[in-house]
């Protein structure tokens, strides 16, 4: 039995002034993540301060867009979808969805790559992942 991931309507992210550059980049097809310039470590979700030092010495950098599934579930609703944690190759584990595949074949440890998915009402696209 196959459970194709639904092309559900995705609510537009509510942008705030601090994270606007992240959403602008997403509109331009780029997937950015936070980087703490004090420690060199990447972080998620994007924000104006470092979750490692609290300083505002942070930047947004383009991620490779590849990673590994750390955990996932399949919401068995009329529109099946798969909220998941993906461990990015840069390190952070991020909350996302696994999309564009048969959800019954998804496995923890599987390699995935980013897909920027359009959202409702012309909102910025959001980073989801599909098996490589």
């Amino acid at each position, binding site marked *: 039995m196959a459970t194709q991931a639904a092309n559900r309507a995705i609510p537009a992210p*509510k942008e705030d002034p601090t994270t606007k550059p992240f959403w602008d980049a997403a509109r331009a097809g780029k997937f950015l993540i936070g980087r703490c310039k004090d420690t060199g470590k990447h972080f998620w*979700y994007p924000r104006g301060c470092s979750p490692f030092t609290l300083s505002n010495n942070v930047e947004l950098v383009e991620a490779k867009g590849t990673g590994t599934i750390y955990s996932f579930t399949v919401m068995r609703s009329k529109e099946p979808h798969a909220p998941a*944690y993906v461990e990015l190759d840069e390190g952070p584990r991020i909350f996302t969805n696994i999309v564009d595949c048969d959800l019954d074949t998804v496995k923890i440890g599987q390699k995935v790559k980013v897909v920027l998915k359009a959202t409702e009402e012309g909102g910025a696209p959001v980073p989801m992942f599909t098996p490589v």
Partner: protein
Amino acid sequence: MSINGAAYIVGAFEHPTRKAEGQSVAQLHAEVAYGALQDAGLSKDDVDGFFCTGAAPGLGPLNQADYMGLTKLRHVDSTDMGGCSYVMHVGHAAQAIKEGRCNIALITLAGRPRAEGMATGTVPRSWAPNIPDDPFEIPMARTVVTSYANVAARHMYEYGTTSEQLAWIKVAASQHAQHNPHAMLPKVVTVEEVVNSPMVADPLHRLDCCVISDGGGALIVARPEIAKSLKRPLVKVLGCAEATKNQAGGQVDLTYSAARQSGAAAFAEAKVTPKDMQYASIYDSFTITVLMQIEDLGFAEKGKGGAFVADGNLISGVGKLPFNTDGGGLCNNHPANRGGMTKVIEAVRQLRGEAHAKVQVPGCKLALANGIGGLLGHRHGSATLIMERE
């Protein structure tokens, strides 16, 4: 500064309603407050400390206190850590009493999500405006059930935990609920019935999930001299601690909960160990929530919780760790989507010897209540309370 022995739980009341079509949220708070005061043998003008959360209407210490006519308050605390807040509030009340900031603390919880038709666990929702993680998680369909399901999936992957093992938690709760005339789900279920119930979010089935209910509860915490002047059995606060766990900038680890920290701190303050506990109220929003706490509180080794809960080990009179003898959130109620209050109340019943005769732990002297608030797979709090019958 330790709160061991600084305060006693002198009053406890659980609202009997499970669907409050005829009462407002403020009125439910008033009814549980009155019930707990009656239980203690006190009246509302004895209350000089008031504890509530965002579940109380408006600014609780102002609007809800006003509704109830609490005019003698000199200490208020509306610290909100979701469903575990009321476990934590017992500790905060003991601290305030120890410092002389109040003598008699009232803690209330009430709500009516069922009457309001709230899709508590399966619809993405924001708690409030301007939450910085919402833009990154609401589009991802972050719901209560998908957050906990991710934890369960990782636990199964890491430790080989099975759906049948999780199902035993529900089975034990249902064994207890059959004796509770107020329980929403009083029917005894089997492991097979749990694992064959519809899948909601893999690996959590419908019967791995708690009920949605209205109602509430209240507690009265008082200083020792006052407790000893009242006529109720003495339930002493031995230790209480809280902890939080969040995403740490993306360093997510779903294999343990904040109960690891809150539990260790509370046991140290109480000067007892998990092995000493004769009864435990363990927050049961989902079966996986219970499993995680059982490991993180030290009742079982990490990864061995599945084996620990199997074969009826949580059933009173059968297993080693009687839990949630009122049927818990899985079978009895989960008022206002916040289960911490009823966790403390059932522990108090056990320590007083006032639980249902079929589930009462004989000579129950030491008990624990643990709560988990927020989303276990995203950011959550844990509060641990240890109590002794004196």
